[in-house]
């Protein structure tokens, strides 16, 4: 499946844009009728997030008044002061960054190694082991979460960031993605390097991985998104505020500050905005990730 790319909408094309179909006979609108559907729909989708940002700058009085403020007449920093100065949000941000950062790096390393070996090297047991990895792709998490908790408990990792990191060091989906990529990579370049005396690892590092940048970007984006947004596993594995990640901390914070709307919304912005910014900067790569994860079935 190809990636959803924009039709070319550069300056010139955009100018032609809606007058593109030659002489629209019944066209009374100066723009495509689709805008009549898309614009309100887009507004409906964007409004909650816009309101989230706006209300993080509202005072409690503004939010608690009746009827509620939709567009504030003045901006306040009370919520942000609470969240940044008098809460664990900075700590949770750090924890989320550590968990997502470590798992992204380890997935890039270990999924590349394993994916390459399954794609290129013949060794005893490779088919069986790869089939086992495929099997885990269709096992829902709630089936394995209880034993995984017991294992983390035995390792003494419960209520540490380790409990969040260790089970996700290698995502089966990542091994699968990387293997699919390497299988479809032409062998010729690698064989030339082999003949020049390069080791298998050398070929992987110097020849195959530089060609695998799109697949690595996909893997990194997926891992980051899954780790940053996860709630269920941190909820099970973490008991203390100190070791919470952003989604877990946010839900705890909300429970303790039900009336402090501005602060909760500021915390919400902290949780959501890094991912949204990453998405805006790397929209194409994100969309490619989602599309390519769809072909796994």
């Amino acid at each position, binding site marked *: *499946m*190809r*990636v*959803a790319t*924009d*039709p*070319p*909408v550069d300056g010139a*094309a955009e100018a032609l*844009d*809606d007058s593109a179909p030659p002489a629209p006979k019944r066209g009374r609108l100066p723009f495509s009728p689709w*805008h009549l559907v*898309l*614009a309100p729909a*887009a507004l409906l*989708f964007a409004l*909650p*997030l816009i309101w989230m940002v706006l209300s993080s700058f509202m005072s409690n009085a503004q939010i608690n008044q*009746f*009827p*509620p403020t*939709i567009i504030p007449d003045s901006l306040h920093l009370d919520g942000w002061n609470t969240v940044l100065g008098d809460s664990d949000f900075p700590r949770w941000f750090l924890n989320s960054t550590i968990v997502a950062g470590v798992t992204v790096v380890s997935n890039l390393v270990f999924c590349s*190694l*394993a994916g390459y070996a*399954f794609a290129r*090297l*013949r*060794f005893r047991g*490779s088919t069986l*082991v790869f089939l086992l990895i495929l099997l*885990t792709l269709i096992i*829902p998490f*709630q089936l*394995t*979460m*209880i*034993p*995984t*908790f*017991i294992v983390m408990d035995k390792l003494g990792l419960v209520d540490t960031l380790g409990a969040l990191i260790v*089970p996700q060091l*290698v995502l089966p989906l990542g091994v699968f993605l990387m293997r699919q990529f390497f299988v479809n990579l032409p062998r010729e370049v690698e*064989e030339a390097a082999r*003949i020049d005396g390069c080791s298998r*690892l050398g070929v992987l590092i110097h020849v195959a991985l530089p060609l695998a940048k799109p697949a690595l970007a996909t893997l990194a984006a997926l891992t980051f998104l899954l780790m940053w*947004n996860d*709630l*269920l596993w941190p*909820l*099970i594995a973490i008991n203390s505020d100190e070791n919470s990640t952003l*989604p877990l901390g*946010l*839900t705890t914070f*909300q429970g303790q500050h039900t009336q402090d*709307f501005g602060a909760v*919304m500021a915390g919400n912005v902290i949780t*959501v905005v890094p991912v949204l910014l990453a998405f805006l900067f790397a929209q194409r790569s994100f969309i490619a990730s*989602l599309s390519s994860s*769809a072909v796994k*079935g």
Partner: protein
Amino acid sequence: MSAEPAAPQRTFAQRILGENPSAWAFVLPAVLIIIGLSIIPIGWSLLLSFNSADLIRPAQWVGLSNYDALLKDPGIRDAVVHTIVYTVLFVPISTALGLFLALGLNRRIRFIGIYRTAFLAPFIASVAAQGVLFSFIFDERFGVANAVLDAVGLPRQGFLGDPDQALFVIALIGIWGGIGFPLVIYLAALQDVPRELVDAASVDGARRWATLRHVILPQLLPVTIFLLVWQALLSLQLFDLVYATTRGGPLDSTVVIVYYIYNQAFELFHAGYAAAVAYVVALFLILLVGAQLIYNRLRARHA
């Protein structure tokens, strides 16, 4: 096939581990983690489901009695009903809306970047954050939703605080946050529909609809089936949104299956029982995925 030079003498390692003994060094970290934390827990869960276990004291073998209890548990029956209601709302609506918006965006249209960003942004945001955001928007007393109802002269609603409404409000939030995936997949699939068909569709209204129905939609059938299965898997495993909005309330009206399993295992410490429930649900989900895989295989054979 392999570029390995044919070695005249196979080493001991090669005799045990196959042609490339060093390949095991490549896969070992991945295999250890996946076997240790995915494969073994599959069997372990099955064992747990035959035990009475509270995660603290040693487990007691109880045979099939967890499964026996499961059949008679009204809590499970309710959780299944809630999950099915959510699924029946979420799956068709999110998929259909995703298709509709993708058809709208699959053209040269101004602001396409802004539109796509608006539809995808909720999907990227953490579900916990979505839930927290909407529990304020739908707050009974101070929420914007009731303010809007007031402004247009409609009666105020209980939303997440009303046992008759909460599940539907959660489905609405789920659809808001879940439309991005079908949208992106349909956009990608529409790129593979031959351009002439789409162009022919834009001549006049009547032919446009016929082309859509008889040419484009059949082309999208495999993707649609994949999306229906995918969205069903997501909604049958709904958890984060319920936890971040209602925690199963009010009056247990939003307890869904995974929430039930979580609650049994980690709040009530009925780990063995929770494992039995998880096993039954997992078997159902695996059947669903299996059906999708068989469909793919059959289609590939006929193609």
